[in-house]
């Protein structure tokens, strides 16, 4: 008899082990790898509450102000009585105004004002300026794979022990200047915090969350195979648990057909004719905007395990992902022209950690004459292909497979640097091969 995979039980077991190591273990650090949508934030909130309940003063390090505010809100939802400190910068509007409505959340730009609170939360950048304080017994470092090693160096003196949580498959941190001279050093300041941590402390317990609650059954196997070949994960829901349907029938256009394909199978590829274009390819940008417009016009409705009634797919449940900021700006302008507002349009870097019902992605290699390391980066495609709960539509020019074949990765091999698998070239091919089965050709 084969055991039936019970996602809830598997995830619960993993979480219990992580919490046990964090609360009762002897190691100074615990590392948790989490695939997209595997309940990382839930884990962070739970660990924070349990540490606070055990009377251990806790600091939480997140990477962006939005992440910090989100964590504060989640903590307050779970435990409204918990005294939480939000350490913020001196800029105007340093935190989300929602926090002002939370009774037990104290906000300050000075760490001293927040001393003694059970949990103090801030960004790594702000923590780095905190000096001359009693170190915290415990820390939780969120999105640790997106944190740079030098950022960890600046804050690690503030805590004794820490739980590091993050997604190894997403975008690596980067530097705007060359850092090759330190490549291969265990403490390369431009590497991720986790790689430095593990290079110096290889004995630390490492855990993995095995279930993605976000990705639908149609997406988890592809994302797992393409981006996490040695650490596979499953989706928490099964085929049929989630459905996407439209109130308005297709008008037969390529845009509508690709939406129907995506609603049916979870993936859709809208392929434009092959052409070398500038980054802000006007045709592709317009195609992306049109897909979003039709998606909203046709009254998308999503059925999921969260509710039995279909929930309307409104603008705030839709995102557009691009590789470059000017592409995002062009899509925003195109959407504004079509009268669409409220849709999140951003680069992969800024969409990290966010979740939507439907995403529309402008393929990073669409229309390019070459494939640079930036465009081939595994994490970029992984972020773009793993933000959705229901369906993902990719807009792309024809010919990317040939482009990939003409541009194998040529980055120099650095001694002492752990080679990341899979490489972007291979991951791109895997995703492309899968998307080809859901292709709709646009005629422009």
């Amino acid at each position: 008899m084969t055991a039936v995979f019970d996602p809830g039980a598997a995830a619960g077991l993993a979480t219990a082990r992580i919490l046990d190591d964090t609360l009762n273990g002897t190691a100074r650090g615990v590392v948790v790898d989490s695939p997209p949508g595997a309940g990382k934030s839930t884990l962070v909130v739970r660990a924070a509450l349990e540490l606070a309940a055990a009377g251990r003063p806790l600091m939480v390090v997140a990477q962006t102000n939005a992440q910090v505010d989100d964590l504060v809100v989640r903590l307050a939802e779970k435990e409204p009585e918990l005294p939480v400190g939000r350490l913020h910068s001196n800029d105007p509007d340093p935190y989300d105004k929602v926090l002002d409505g939370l009774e037990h959340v104290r906000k300050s730009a000075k760490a001293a004002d927040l001393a003694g609170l059970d949990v103090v939360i801030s960004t790594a950048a702000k923590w780095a300026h905190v000096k001359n304080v009693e170190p915290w017994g415990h820390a939780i470092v969120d999105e640790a794979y997106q944190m740079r090693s030098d950022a960890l160096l600046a804050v690690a003196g503030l805590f004794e022990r820490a739980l590091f949580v993050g997604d190894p498959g997403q975008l690596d941190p980067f530097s705007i200047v060359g850092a090759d001279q330190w490549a291969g050093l265990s403490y390369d300041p431009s590497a991720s915090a986790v790689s430095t941590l593990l290079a110096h402390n290889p004995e630390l317990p490492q855990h993995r969350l095995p279930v993605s609650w976000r990705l639908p059954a149609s997406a988890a196997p592809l994302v797992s195979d393409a981006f996490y070949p040695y650490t596979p994960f499953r989706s928490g829901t099964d085929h049929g648990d989630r459905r996407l349907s439209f109130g308005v029938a297709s008008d037969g256009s390529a845009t509508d057909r690709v939406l129907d394909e995506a609603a049916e199978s979870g993936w859709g590829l809208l392929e434009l004719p092959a052409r070398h274009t500038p980054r802000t390819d006007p045709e592709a940008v317009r195609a992306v905007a049109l897909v979003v417009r039709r998606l909203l016009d046709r009254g998308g409705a999503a059925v999921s395990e969260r509710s039995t009634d279909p929930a309307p797919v409104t603008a705030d449940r839709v995102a557009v992902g691009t590789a470059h900021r000017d592409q995002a700006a062009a899509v925003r302008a195109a959407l504004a022209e079509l009268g669409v507002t409220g849709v999140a349009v951003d680069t992969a870097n800024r969409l990290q950690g966010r979740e939507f019902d439907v995403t529309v992605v402008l393929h990073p290699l669409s229309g390019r004459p070459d494939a640079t390391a930036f465009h081939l980066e595994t994490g970029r495609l992984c972020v773009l292909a793993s933000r959705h709960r229901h369906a993902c539509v990719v807009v792309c020019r024809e010919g990317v497979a040939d482009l990939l074949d003409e541009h194998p990765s040529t980055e120099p091999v650095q001694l002492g640097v752990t080679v990341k698998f899979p490489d972007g070239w291979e991951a791109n091919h895997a995703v492309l091969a899968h998307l080809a089965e859901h292709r709709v050709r646009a005629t422009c």
Partner: protein
Amino acid sequence: MSLINTLARLEAVESGRARPTATVRHRRLTGRPLVLVPLTTAGEAGAPLGALVGTDRDAPRLLAVAQPRDRDLRFAFLAELAEAVLPHIESYADVVEPAERGETDPATGKRVKVETELCVDAAQIVVPSRAGIEFVRLLGRSMRFRRTADDDPDTPYPAPARVPLLGRWLTHYGERARVPGSSLLLACTDLLNRHWATGQSNLEDQHLGALLAWIDPPAGESGAEAALRAELARDAAGQLLCPPAGPATDPDFDNRLLAPAIEKYDRARASLAAAEDGLAADARLAELSGAEREIRALLAGVLRPTWDAVWRGLDLLRELPEGARTEDRWTRDRWSFTAHRDRVRSGEPPQPRRDDAVTAARKLAARETAQAQLEAQEALDDPLVLAGRRLAGEAFIGEVSAVEMAYSESKRPSPRPLVTVRTDERPQLGEGVKIYRSLDGKPQTAQFAGYGPADEEGGAPSLVLRITDRMGRGKEPAPGSVPEPGDRIAWTLFEHDQRGGPQLPDAEETPWTHGGPPGGVEAAELPDPMTPEDLL
């Protein structure tokens, strides 16, 4: 590559001449740069073959190694290089002015001003190409740990007295060259590529001869033709008319001319060693020095065109007026120069082989700040660079059409005037995005407050900006601090000044995540250990 650079390259292809990408010079050129054109031996990493060095374009000093595998000859070369370079550096070390520096008082932990001195100018070194900078770094690495007989009487191969010192200075210059915008050690190709766009590939732009051919082609010839000739044309003996700018040499030169000359030198040396009487020795010595002269002549022949090309490149660059904020970056270079002078004088050990965790993080942070600052300063100094940023939606020029007074909502309301700006450009603005303008050389911040009405002809909607600072402390903004209708103002979406990053822990307090404090006294002072592979 930015859109404007792509455009400039296309125009260069079309017109057959390089197009300027800057209207001012964005790097400091001192009045007396030291030009160094090094050559290395093929197949022997770090074995110098020769160099032209000097500050007088008409009188370069030729240094040559007749047999690059000979350790003694190499040391002689390095000692001679030290004699050529160190006096140049040292001539700047004692011309100082008083200055103040912020320091953290170890007793109180407060920032205090300390009286100190700053070199009035710093020694500048110019090499032909980026590979030359790499070679300077390599020379520095190979010399700074050497021991002289004074350091250690028992050292098996004592280095000439000033060689380790030269190694430390070249290491410093090599590291400083990694800081964006610094001008202590410059590559001529980098300088030219910063100020002109050619119609050839980035790879070809590393060829100094081809680059100059595009920028300043001979009369009646297009840049592309001249560049092709610079890359490929050979004389009757099969030698390149425009030899590579080094440090690598052309294989045809190595095989056909250099290798036979070195063999001849080796034979002459062997026969001198085998000479049985003084008379024979004299004759053979003459043969040996003849062979050496031949090698020197060969090297001079391939070095001189590059030497002249570097000076020609500098001439072209000097025709551009210097950007206003270049001075600011050069001051940082002077601080760097002065600080290294002080480290050498206080007897600190040479720079370690590898940076520790804290030093590496500090350097990276400093360079990231310098990069952002360089990009901002170049745009503020140069309308052509600003045009590139405008085209990318990172800046815009607009005319103020209306100003409406408004105040902040606080107990003591401060002025927050709303300025309506008309522009045809398309900056990438979003709600609350900060933008900056230069007001008396200082940045003034504003926030994008939304789109205003379109103009009568139905053009682009105007932009409403809320000014948020630099208006004085009073209730009414200080005179001249708020734009007035009719003003044409350049606004940027990037900051003009960069805030430095956070302070990092001291190296002795490196946390456990980064391996703890560096172990004991690192073997920084020890020379490289001898290995069986160490043949040279």
